[in-house]
């Protein structure tokens, strides 16, 4: 070990990077299982129903929230990366764009929650 660890990672861009990477790994682990269970609809419907019954359990519901979080984080991480690398905008322009997107989603989510 060294006398001081590497602390040069404690900044937003690096944290965004690691969040994107870890959410991607999480999804990569989840997707094969997801597709396998979906395939049961064709091969073994009773077993599929057994799995679907699991979704009534609170812990599974909580895990689903985590899954949606991973998906959302990974999607926005990807959009962020593409915007950052492919659109030669100035930093204030990017901040404005990110703010506008966040505000749009806030309004859309509020609207959705009113609707349901």
């Amino acid at each position: 070990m060294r006398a001081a660890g590497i602390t040069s990672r404690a900044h937003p861009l690096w944290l965004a990077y690691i969040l994107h990477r870890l959410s991607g790994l999480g999804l990569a682990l989840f997707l094969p299982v997801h597709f396998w269970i979906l395939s049961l609809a064709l091969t073994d419907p009773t077993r599929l129903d057994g799995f679907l019954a699991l979704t009534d359990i609170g812990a599974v519901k909580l895990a689903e929230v985590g899954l949606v979080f991973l998906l959302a984080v990974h999607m926005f991480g990807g959009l962020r990366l593409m915007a950052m690398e492919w659109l030669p905008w100035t930093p204030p322009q990017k901040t404005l764009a990110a703010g506008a997107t966040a505000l749009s989603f806030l309004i859309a989510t509020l609207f959705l929650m009113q609707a349901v």
Partner: protein
Amino acid sequence: MTAHSLKVTIERGPDTWDVFDVPAYESQTVLDVVSWVQQNADPTLSYRFACRVGMCGSCAMMVNGVPRWTCRTHMSKVLKDNAVTIGPLRNLPVVKDLVVDMDPFFDKWVGAEGVHHGTLTRDDPIAPVDETSEARIEANAGIECINCSVCYAACDTVAGNPDYLGPAALQRAWTLLNDAKDEGRVAILDAVSGSGGCHNCHSMGSCTTYCPNDLDPMSAIAGLKRETAKSFFRRGR
């Protein structure tokens, strides 16, 4: 004179470090502290510096795990509980104590075609440079690099891939690509799109965060990504 002393830990090898009590002064820099240790406590301590005013780029070290130019980093900025840890730059082979071998860093500078590609001779008129052109503004944004290797030490992609050219060399390639006096476009795009090239970059942004001159290598590399992609699709047509 000195009111109190600082606890300074200096890394001397992969698993060894020495702790020194260094008198505190007003406006003291990290380089001042290292120099005090070498002049007053341990003359065998090796470190590198030259200009002491942030121009030469030779005194960069890891300070509390963060790469910094030590001559222009005040102790007041980095002290934690009156203590600081100083080590050699990351991602480069250590020669001794705080001195690293900069050869890989400069070799990659050349590897990224960070050299002048001229076509004119001394008999030709000087190429006109339009200071207001978009390309010149891009080039100007990166030319104040002092080759200190702080970005190179901050980059995790460099740590993970020894062939990666790194932020400084790629930024240099980007400035040359945008330089009206440089005719190396094909050579540069070829050099930066190889296995160690710009597409290794994960946009972690540590280079831009820690560049002591407030340059933005991450955006320069993004520019190279766009240009190499454009040139790929053009050839494919």
